[in-house]
């Protein structure tokens, strides 16, 4: 018995002594991006038509005439000659660091460049020239991926760095947000979308646009505000007003004298009877989701989708009656998989349904949408349907489909992205 006790004591002793040297080891492996700076003067001097580049990370889209202006998130704008949709040509690239939004009117293009609004003359897309900078038009863009913009230096690129560090094994160490601010390009941007035609002499943008032009006004939305610029002198935009809307604003879409603004929690309708000072007419609340919106005379079409960023669990198309602008009401809901951007041309409705591809409906009777065709094997995000050609932003490229014959919708071309 004595020996048993001895052995047990020895085991116990070993336990106690070894505890001090039994140390957990934890590592964290992450990627971060280090900014590459240029001086403000260097950046501004390079905002012009440069050599075309491969599309890498497309953002918003605007089309005007035979040209497609495609945002490369945070880097600039591709100019694509779409004279022949079956054979589009990438003809130039405008370097605009910090660019995510674009709007076009006549021969003038408006784009954000981090905090500034830049006005470009695009009379000759191969010889674009800067007409004006409006400094600090978008102060919320001062913060980019955790870096604060500087008036003298501008981030023009990011260098990827992979690293593994030993961390304290306590749960609080190394948590994401501590360094996420140093990750990747991100935060804002959007891709093209809707509007079958623009009566304002402006380019056609998408249902996910955050810039839009109506007559002599450029309207831009931030997370919480609607900014108004007077562009009656097209090359000399003047900031004239800022309207508080509420939080989580996502998109803006013009129709007649109304602005339809999509937010995470609902759709707002603003009247532009007084265009310099738009006022809210009504709102339609919905579950917390992402919701691009398009509208026409009687109806507004809102796609609601869920996802970690968007939150919520709703994936559907809501059709609202907006004949009485002050009290829009829900007419019909259609269940979808993960709808993103949408577009409507006449009675033909195009919906990007994520991994379910592009869905094309006959929307003559909004109470009975009929699926004409579903283009599968595409992960689609946004679409602009105009002039019998549907421009579709997908995960692996920019596609163009001809729908001049709805019974025979054909792929015209695809611009692939740089892998």
């Amino acid at each position, binding site marked *: 018995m004595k*020996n*048993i006790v*001895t*052995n*047990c004591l*020895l*085991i*116990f*002793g*070993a*336990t106690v*002594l*070894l*505890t001090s*040297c*039994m*140390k*957990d*080891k*934890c*590592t*964290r*492996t*992450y*990627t971060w991006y280090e900014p590459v700076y240029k001086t403000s003067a260097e950046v501004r001097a390079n905002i012009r038509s440069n050599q075309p580049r491969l599309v890498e*990370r*497309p*953002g*918003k889209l605007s089309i005007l005439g035979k040209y497609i202006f495609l945002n490369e*998130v945070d880097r600039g704008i591709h100019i694509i000659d779409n004279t022949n949709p079956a054979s589009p040509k990438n003809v130039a690239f405008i370097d605009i660091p910090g660019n*995510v939004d674009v709007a076009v009117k006549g021969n003038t293009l408006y784009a954000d460049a981090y905090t500034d609004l830049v006005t470009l003359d695009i009379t000759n897309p191969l010889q674009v020239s800067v007409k004006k900078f409006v400094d600090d038009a978008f102060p919320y863009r001062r913060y980019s991926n955790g870096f604060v913009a500087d008036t003298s230096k501008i981030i023009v690129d990011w260098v990827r760095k992979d690293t593994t560090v030993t*961390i304290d*094994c306590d*749960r609080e160490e*190394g*948590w*994401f947000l501590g360094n*996420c601010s140093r*990750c*990747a390009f*991100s*935060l*804002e*941007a*959007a*891709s093209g979308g809707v509007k079958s035609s623009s009566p304002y002499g402006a380019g056609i943008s998408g249902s*996910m646009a*955050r810039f839009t032009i109506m007559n002599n006004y450029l309207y831009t939305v931030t997370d919480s505000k609607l900014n108004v610029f007077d562009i009656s002198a097209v090359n000399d935009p003047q900031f004239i007003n800022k309207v508080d809307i509420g939080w989580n604003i*996502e*998109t803006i879409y013009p129709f007649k004298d109304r602005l339809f603004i999509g937010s995470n929690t609902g759709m707002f309708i603003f009247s532009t009877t007084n265009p310099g000072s738009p006022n809210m007419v009504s709102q339609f609340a919905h579950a917390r989701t*992402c919701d691009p919106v398009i509208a026409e005379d009687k109806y507004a079409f809102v796609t609601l989708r869920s*996802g*970690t*960023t968007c939150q919520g669990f709703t994936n559907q198309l809501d059709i609202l009656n907006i004949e009485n602008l002050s009290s829009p009401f829900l007419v019909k809901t259609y269940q979808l998989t993960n709808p*993103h951007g949408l577009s409507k041309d006449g009675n033909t409705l195009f919906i990007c349904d994520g991994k379910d591809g592009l869905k094309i409906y006959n929307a003559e009777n909004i109470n009975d949408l009929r699926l004409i065709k579903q283009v599968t094997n595409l*992960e689609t*995000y*946004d679409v602009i349907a105009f002039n019998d050609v549907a421009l579709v*932003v997908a*995960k692996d490229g920019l596609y163009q489909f001809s729908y001049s014959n709805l019974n025979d919708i054909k792929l015209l071309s695809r611009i692939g992205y740089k892998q």
Partner: protein
Amino acid sequence: MKKLLQALVLCVCVSSIANAQQSGNSAKKDCGCSFSSINQAGLLEGSSGSAFQFQTINGMRYQKWFVGLGVGLDKYRFRTVPVFFDIRRDLLNKLNTPFLYGDIGASIPWVEDKDKTFWGRSEFDRGLFYDAGIGYKLNLGKGRAVLFSGGVSLKKIRETRHFDVACITFPCPGQSERYDFSLRRFSLKAGLQL
């Protein structure tokens, strides 16, 4: 510290051998294999604190040897289910005897929500599990015994945290981070062998 460990193991062995010499040849001889089940519970002690563990190991006993497959519950740092191969050998031909054991296998994650990231989505992957040490067996008769053991245990587990960065351009850029945990602890167990 390695020398200290070696010294301690040596002490236990020497002590046990001495015990064997004093007790004489009272061990009951096994003459064939038989099914045996070991069920034990205990503590895991390391720099992340103390945690409960439980194991059930079932296998064959042959003379001084036992081999089996085990499964358990390990709540050290993350809740995991160790699935492992176990081998152990009595050091003496006696009813009461020290023994050596070794386990090797995988830690299957069964992580509680509280241990997952709040900001994104956690995915856990299984990792190596081992436990090796020494113990003492107190025979209760009829093939039953009480076991006490202490050893060094390691479990590895990998967590990948996925975060979606808010954006309205698609696809939104994802962000992932990988965390590798090598959790070294001391393993104290007591149990019953049937």
